[in-house]
């Protein structure tokens, strides 16, 4: 009959711990839509859900049809402004805002103009062309498309935790404001609540 004494058991456990520590890391590709929650922090699923909700709301509400009716079938031109992250985590809004932008462009329901640092680079390139490009290919100044609406937003969070339990609530708000009248034409929001137990 096999008998295991205490030193042998400790030895086996320690060996197992060492082997576990030396185990190679395993990485597998997963579907981008697969929900994998590890830490309870903001992740790709939250970004995707936010993008889906915002896109459906932005393209499905009245502001779009109103604009096209009032402007003889013209599509509204949108510039993406600032999104402020006021939550407790690092969240990059570009992941879901870019999804929205892409849908605007691919569906051709909303026109998009470049803003921020990219616009500065564009103008820098145009300025460079004034001195270096041939006259026939040189792009002219003062012919940019002016935006009708600006898209701005904020990300807020509320954390409630006690001992090993935590509830995290995220609220992402995006709004479209008429640049002529300052009138807010659309507000989309996505609320996400998570219960985390350690």
């Amino acid at each position: 009959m096999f008998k295991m004494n205490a030193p042998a058991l400790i030895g086996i456990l320690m060996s197992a711990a060492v082997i576990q520590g030396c185990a190679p890391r395993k990485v597998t590709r997963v579907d981008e839509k697969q929900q994998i929650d590890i830490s309870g922090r903001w992740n790709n699923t939250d970004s995707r859900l936010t993008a889906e909700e915002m896109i459906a709301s932005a393209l499905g509400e009245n502001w779009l049809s109103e604009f096209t009716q009032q402007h003889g079938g013209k599509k509204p031109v949108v510039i993406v402004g600032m999104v402020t992250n006021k939550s407790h985590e690092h969240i990059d809004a570009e992941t879901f805002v870019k999804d929205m932008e892409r849908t605007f462009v691919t569906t051709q329901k909303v026109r998009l103009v470049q803003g921020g640092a990219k616009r500065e680079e564009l103008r820098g390139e145009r300025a460079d062309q004034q001195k270096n490009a041939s006259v026939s290919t040189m792009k002219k100044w003062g012919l940019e498309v002016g935006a009708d609406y600006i898209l701005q937003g904020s990300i807020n969070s509320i954390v409630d935790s006690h001992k090993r339990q935590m509830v995290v609530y995220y609220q992402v708000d995006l709004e479209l404001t008429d640049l002529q009248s300052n009138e807010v034409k659309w507000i989309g929001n996505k609320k996400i609540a998570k219960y985390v137990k350690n």
Partner: protein
Amino acid sequence: MRYCIRYHHFEAAIVACLLTMARPAMAQQQLLPDQNPRYQESMALYLIHEDSLTAREGETVQKTYKAYQFMEAKREWREQKRQARLERRARGWDTWGYPGYTYGYGYPGYNIGYGYPAYGFGHYRHHYGRSSFDWHDLAAVTTLAMGAYWLFR
């Protein structure tokens, strides 16, 4: 000579004024349909900075951030602890027991429960008072205790 300089200044000022007055008229003549009449203001501004604005074309701008990873944080925390221990060793034993020094001050095991279970590893730990239990303390206390025992037995 003074008169000459003054005359040249006056002349330059007149030329500048004439150019400034003539520019909008010239711009008006050359405007394309729907072109912004003040485009030259923007163009003048960007022509000054075009080098810096186009210098990074084709480059990937790295605006990365350090994501929180449990294992990485744990490793860093251990390394930090190891460094602190090495520094204490380098300082030597002569500073032992002086109030205000980290070494030998506080209670073993104190402060190890400061972490919030929901939030990571070591974020809230080891910031207040003594860092953690140290084998140096155990050795020192044992030595003192044995010395006292041998003296007073």
